[in-house]
């Protein structure tokens, strides 16, 4: 089942990515949405009918390192893939109305490819499959970003994360000779600890958790269509799924996980602070995403399973974060689609016999109605209804996470909602309105000072001392002087004088005598 979906998505992406025309873009994207909806329906039917299967493709048939690509259709894979299909439909739907995006079809194809790569990650049963899918997602993310500055930061961060993951899995494979995730739990080696640290670091960077949010924040410069793919179907989600997949390999008391928990909580805080103080709407959306990822990491760590709440939260978050940027012109359409999607999610959840879902449905409907009301009737500045939207979004997160998130989160979120609604920070707002503060990129600077500069400094010192001072100025000049002295000496000896002739003759006789003595 999953393999069929995977192949269909690959074909769909391959067939549409080449389209560069301007005409019929909306039509083609709509067709893609329709096809994705059919796939979703078909896939959901599979879940309802209990169709489970196991498909493995022997990718590398080497006797030393056999690698298979696994596409197991299990209950877990259904639960993870269905929301992804929802998400890609939503992202494409919002892309149709995007006026700025000129290459809607290509972007849509990239989103489809991203989902295929995420499916590969979700179904991965071995480290190589995880590594390959994560790297593919990065390359697709790289293609999605069409701004040079955002792309630069993205690729440097992710290169670091990928090489960390590469190294972690190379250590595990080198020491244990196992790449199966199930069997790796039985392998205990002194260097496994290093591998665990590297995996945590990789997921940390990929998900853009504090303090690695730099590349994530930079994507604010992209238009909505591309930003949606990057936020919901690309690297940050891959980082989260990576940790989810390898969690069984990492001991519960591992300090790296503890640190990651703190990083996730710090992301929550930082996201909230950014959401409050950053004026630009696109930046706020990114900070909201950061809050979201901080939250779901915590939900995962505290609940130990990927609960349906997270899945629902994921979809709701996509909708809300897009709503806050939607113009009034499309509000009705967006509202209707949101209503339908939320209904579908709830239905899907209901079919899984989750009793709490009807309550969520009510909450969602009330919130969305409130949003729509504000959107149409409010005469306030744009900033206020945006704040309201953010507050609504966060409260929804709060509502969904209530079962699993500890009390400390309630305080943060409650605080955030209150701050947004009451706005007691006028003075701070003025300070933060300062252009320099708004544009400050402290973390990039810290990153540069701490990591890049020392390497560059060391390289320059080495070049100066070894290449220039020792080799060029000392060794070579010494050689040149020696050569000069020798050439002077030989030049002197070659002068046509009797003394020189005598010296040469003596040397010749000496060589003859030595050779004959050796010969005896």
């Amino acid at each position, binding site marked *: 089942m999953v393999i069929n979906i995977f192949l269909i998505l690959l074909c769909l992406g391959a067939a549409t990515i080449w389209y560069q025309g301007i005409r019929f873009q909306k039509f083609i994207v709509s067709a893609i949405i329709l096809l994705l909806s059919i796939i979703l329906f078909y896939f959901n039917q599979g879940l309802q009918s209990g169709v489970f299967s196991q498909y493995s493709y022997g*990718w*590398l*048939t*080497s006797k*030393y*390192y056999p*690698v298979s690509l696994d596409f197991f259709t299990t209950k877990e894979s259904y639960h993870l893939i269905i929301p992804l299909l929802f998400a890609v439909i939503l992202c494409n739907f919002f892309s149709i109305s995007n006026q700025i995006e000129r290459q809607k079809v290509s972007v849509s194809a990239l989103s489809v490819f991203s989902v295929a790569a995420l499916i590969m990650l979700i179904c991965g049963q071995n480290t*190589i499959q995880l*590594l*390959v899918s994560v*790297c*593919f997602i*990065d*390359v697709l993310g*790289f293609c999605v970003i069409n701004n*040079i500055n955002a*792309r*630069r930061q993205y*690729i*440097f961060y992710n*290169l*670091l994360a*990928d*090489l960390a993951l*590469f*190294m972690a*899995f*190379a*250590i595990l*494979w*080198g*020491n244990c000779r196992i790449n199966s995730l199930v069997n790796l739990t039985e392998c205990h080696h002194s*260097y496994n600890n*290093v591998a665990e640290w590297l995996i945590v670091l990789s997921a940390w960077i990929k998900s853009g958790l504090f303090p690695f949010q730099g590349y994530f924040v930079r994507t604010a410069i992209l238009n909505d269509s591309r930003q949606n793919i990057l936020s919901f179907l690309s690297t940050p989600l891959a980082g989260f799924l990576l940790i989810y997949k390898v969690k069984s390999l990492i001991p519960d008391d591992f300090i790296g996980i503890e640190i990651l928990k703190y990083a996730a909580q710090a992301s929550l805080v930082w996201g909230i602070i950014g959401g409050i103080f950053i004026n630009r709407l696109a930046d706020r959306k990114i900070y909201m995403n950061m809050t979201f990822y901080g939250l779901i990491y915590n939900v995962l760590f505290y609940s130990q399973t990927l609960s349906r709440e997270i899945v629902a939260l994921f979809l709701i978050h996509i909708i809300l974060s897009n709503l806050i940027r939607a113009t009034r012109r499309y509000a009705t359409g967006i509202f209707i689609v949101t209503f339908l999607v939320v209904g579908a999610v709830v239905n899907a959840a209901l079919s899984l016999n989750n009793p709490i879902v009807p309550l969520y449905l009510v909450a969602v409907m009330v919130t969305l109605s409130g949003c729509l009301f504000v959107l149409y009737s409010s005469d306030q500045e744009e900033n206020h209804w945006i704040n309201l939207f953010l507050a609504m979004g966060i409260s929804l997160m709060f509502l969904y996470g209530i079962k699993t998130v500890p009390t400390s989160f309630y305080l943060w979120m409650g605080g955030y909602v209150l701050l947004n609604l009451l706005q007691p920070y006028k003075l701070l707002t003025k300070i933060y309105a300062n252009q320099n503060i708004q544009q400050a990129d402290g973390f990039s600077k810290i990153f540069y000072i701490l990591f890049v500069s020392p*390497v*560059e400094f*060391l*390289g*320059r010192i*080495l*070049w100066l001392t*070894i*290449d220039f001072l*020792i*080799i*060029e100025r000392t060794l*070579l000049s010494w050689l040149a002087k020696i050569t000069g002295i020798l050439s002077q000496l030989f030049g002197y000896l070659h002068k046509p004088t009797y003394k020189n002739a005598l010296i040469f003759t003596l040397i010749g006789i000496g060589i003859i005598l030595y050779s004959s003595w050796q010969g005896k």
Partner: protein
Amino acid sequence: MEITSHILLILMLVPFFGFLFVLMSQEDKQKKIYNGVAVAEFAVCCNILLLGKLLTEIDLSQNGLQFLSSYNWLEQPHIKISFGIDIFSLMIALAIHLMLVIGLPFAKNSQHPKLLISLSLLMISLLTGFLISADIFSFYIFFTAMLFPLFVLIGTVGEIRKSSWMFRFFIYNFLGSIILFLVVCTLYQYHPQTEGILLEQVAKLRLPRIYEYWIWGGIFAALLSRIPIWPFHYWIASITGAIQNPLAFLLVNLIPLTGVYGLVRFCPKTVPESVSYMLTVLEIIAAISMLFIAMIGLINKDNRYKLFSFMTVYYIIFLLGALLPTNRILLNIGYSIFAFLIIITVLEVLADYIREEQQRNNLNFYGILCYSPRIALLYSFFTLAAVGFPLSALFINNFVILSYLFRYNFNLGLVIMIAIIVSSASLLKELYLLKDNRYVHSDSVCISDISRSVFIGLSSIGVLLLISFFNPLLGIGG
């Protein structure tokens, strides 16, 4: 059967005849030696077909050289030379030929196209001879002989302006050859075998301790003279950084590969116990060199130097992988080198095009790719493939090599990873400087993009690489 027994000799002779043909042909100024390029392409493609035939016939389950053939060279002293090939040398030979196929069309832009093409063919002929040599005599002959076209290439086509650099480079490489010559003489003196001493037998020879020191020390010194090993990297770095022609650059950068290949061929994993400490010293020097060159590559602003440092880092990784006490990853190293050389070739060809356009239009180097979507796309793709994203066979094969390196020496693996990160960052930094639109103004002149045919040609190489990712063992297995 007859053809198969002489196929290795034919492999060497085909480019040699091509060299003679191009050398004797008339230079047509208007057509820009079109014939020479065609002959060279034909000769190289013939060899690729022959290598393809060998690829289908080679037995992977068999260790050691295959298709062995011997020829009497001298009667007194009686010296026989032998040729043989295994999958490792076959993959390298194939990659070098493909490298030439990609690079040859760009030879037309050189100041001396005829000389460049003819010397490239001679170099390929000698390199093929080096790769298929099975005994110490043929190994030494080709090891030294390839210096001749190399020096002429550097001196004429490479347009090296500083004679002191040439001098140093020559002395350094020539010293290596002399040391190897003395080693070969010593070996012959102690084992004047009628069938000649095969390379793999050297490690098994029983010699007095002092001779073991001399022979193995000499072998290491001679072969390391070809690799930019710290602190002597400067001899090679200064030359490669200054060469003006892409094909000459690529051919000169094959020299370190010959050093790596030589060390692999002598099988130092079975060196006598008395000299095994030399391997440890070699590993340490290699690790230092790697880090050092990667860091200098990062701070150096010259595009060629960055590529050189990147190549050196990877050559040393391949060397360290090959020195591990296992034969299992030799195939992976071969596959990896195959993809690596192709990626580097395309990157150098593109970089050279950019440099030429920059000089012709007197433009700023930064942001030069902003209005050239075709080059930008290709340059990005090949850079990403080079730095380790899953876009070529390099990805999975490097994974296997590194996993073995981590297994045998964790600290060494760590140093290698740091060097990889630094050299990859250096390449990426270069890419983004080329694409940085902050330096581009709307009224500034921009370079002309590559032609559609070149774009299609280079894209098809990209597709080939992508296929090699999905089939990293290149359909042969391992």
